């Protein structure tokens, strides 16, 4: 056991931090700077980070979920308004299904509440299905249950273009008007275990994003508390403010520990154990992230409740990541099931 990042992982983290720091958001108005956003997108495209889960020459993904989490955390911290979670999950699906890498940007299609993959009925996806983190994507992948196929086959659906959503940095999209799923003829079916492991990856990446968002929101609030003066002194000198920030830091550190473990588990242990690790991490990180982002708003006082303060951009990003593959309640239920005290054991 050595859960420190390796030198390679530290180099990856530093390079993601550098890109997100240089080209991510520093003010709400930056959201309108299309030139900056294009540069960010180009830098992330050139980095190959979205293809970390694609099939490598040696077989298996190019990188473990830990590397993916390392990048996701930094992109979350820097409020990088570029796609990562969606394309990463799509690349992993393609690899699991034995399909060649995508030739154009794509993402994945979830239910309207983001808790599960969208259910396909009679070859159609529901009109309210959501293509998450869909910036630039014209299509979304969805694993489809096909009778007699020995599992789920991968399908794709055309998207109707970016639509605004809760997260100002990662717009969602919805299925185009036809809603028709095209099943890939080639490749191998995805069994339940593969889908479970893939979902664990999604949960782990969302957790890493939440850890990054917490770091970013906490830094923002701590900087403000050091500068903002009332009664002639910085508000950060008041214990009432200090204790809010201290609790936020502790929640962030606890989240980081459990999120790292979930990321490691994706590729290192059985799919059941990985799912349990991911569920525990998601419940913890989702609750913590909301609290930390709310603290960031509170510490900013009046300005924190205005559109121009970045604090709500962190909160909004946290709300989206929290709901990807289920938020607190669903994942607490999964934790109980993993400990043998859930659903089928006769519990209400």
């Amino acid at each position: 056991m050595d859960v420190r990042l390796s030198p390679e992982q530290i180099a990856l983290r530093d390079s993601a931090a550098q890109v997100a720091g240089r080209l991510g958001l520093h003010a709400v108005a930056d959201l309108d700077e299309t030139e900056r956003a294009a540069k960010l997108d180009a830098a992330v495209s050139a980095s190959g980070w979205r293809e970390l889960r694609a099939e490598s020459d040696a077989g298996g993904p190019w990188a473990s979920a830990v590397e993916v989490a390392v990048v996701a955390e930094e992109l979350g911290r820097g409020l990088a308004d570029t796609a990562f979670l969606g394309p990463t999950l799509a690349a992993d699906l393609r690899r699991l299904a034995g399909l060649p890498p995508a030739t154009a940007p794509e993402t994945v299609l979830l239910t309207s509440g983001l808790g599960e993959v969208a259910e396909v009925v009679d070859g159609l996806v529901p009109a309210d299905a959501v293509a998450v983190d869909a910036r630039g994507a014209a299509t979304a992948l969805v694993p489809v249950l096909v009778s007699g196929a020995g599992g789920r086959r991968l399908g794709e659906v055309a998207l109707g273009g970016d639509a605004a959503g809760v997260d100002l940095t990662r717009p969602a999209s919805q299925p185009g008007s036809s809603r028709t799923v095209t099943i890939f003829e080639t490749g191998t079916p995805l069994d339940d275990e593969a889908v479970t492991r893939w979902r664990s990856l999604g949960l782990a990446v969302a957790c890493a994003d939440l850890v990054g968002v917490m770091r970013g929101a906490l830094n923002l609030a701590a900087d403000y508390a050091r500068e903002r003066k009332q009664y002639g002194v910085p508000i950060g000198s008041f214990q009432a403010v200090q204790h809010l920030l201290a609790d936020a830091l502790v929640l962030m550190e606890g989240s980081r520990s459990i999120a790292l473990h979930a990321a490691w588990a994706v590729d290192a242990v059985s799919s059941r154990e990985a799912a349990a690790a991911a569920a525990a991490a998601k419940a913890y990180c989702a609750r913590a992230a909301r609290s930390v982002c709310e603290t960031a708003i509170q510490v900013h006082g009046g300005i924190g409740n205005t559109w121009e303060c970045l604090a709500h951009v962190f909160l909004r990003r946290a709300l989206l990541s929290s709901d990807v593959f289920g938020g607190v309640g669903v994942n607490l239920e999964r934790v109980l099931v993993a400990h043998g005290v859930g659903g089928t054991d006769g519990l209400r």
Partner: protein
Amino acid sequence: MDFGDSPDEGAFRLRLREWLAANNPGLPPSSTADEYWAGQAAWHQTLYVAGFFGLSWPVEAGGHGLPSVYEVILDEELIAAGAPPRPSVGYLVQGLLEHGNADVRQRFLPGLVSGRDRWCQGFSEPDAGSDLASLRTRAVREGSEYVITGHKVWTSYSDQADWCLVLARTHPDAPKHRGISAFVVPMRQAAIEQRPLTMINGITREFGEVIFDGARVDAANMIGEPGEGWRLAMTIVSHEREPGELGYVGRYGKLVKELAQIVRGRPADFGAEQRRDLAWAMVEAEMLRCHVSRRLSDRLDGITHGPEGSVDKLLMTWTEQSVGHAALAIGGIAPAAVQDDTWLRVYLYSRAQSVMGGTSQIQRNLIAARILEMPTA
């Protein structure tokens, strides 16, 4: 980054697992009954004799010199076996290792680590709680000895202790942080009176107050130089805040497992709210296990004594108190005296965690000042 076992770690884990299968003493949940504390001393020695205690401490100290992360393997296997957690003496060991001279380390560490000698810690006083540096217990030199007079309180295990690590003022005219020295004082002497305190959950064997009325200690039992007691105190309290030193991952894992067994056995008796409390306890306990793995990994190249202990203390406290809430939800309040109140005791004990070893408020002050670098008023 790897939470998994190396081949050596895996072999150790198997050896430990086999031993535990035959040597679990089956004590009640921690800190719920006097019976627990009575059995805990024997458990310490049993673990030590079998070669499973003091894993990461130096061989000279009676430890095994293994990498720090072996401690979390021990915690995990204790949970899996349903065995009691490892004894919580790590903070004393770290304090003596860091500040004791060769003579002190040689004389005291092996007995502390093996469990042959029982220790307590005389830091807090009736008028020196969070403001520890205002302590008034005095130590006056007389020949080759010091004579100690004062009143210590919240002294865990004082009733069983052979030795007490006492902070006492040796330089009354020095600034308050600089006039304190630390001594290892023998508890078995007439000039020391030990009075047990009954905690809110009813146990009497853990908590006490100690009156030093001219107690004597050899000057060679001073830890560090005269006036350096504050530094030692800060090293000790920083580690006293670390679940990795206390072995509390094992403590919470065991409690959660036992609560889950209750729910599994009588599923119809528990509703959504109780299950939710249990689920949070599971999540918090898992978080703490992961967090301790991370902290102990950070020590693979050597230990540092920094402010991170305050972060760990709050995580540990939130874990203990969520386990406490699950215990209350599932075990109930035992409204009649004939009913088993084990889980009520677990809940009531959990309230101490946000006070002992430095209150949660003090941890937040330390985090704000030393990690977040907030300005001072």
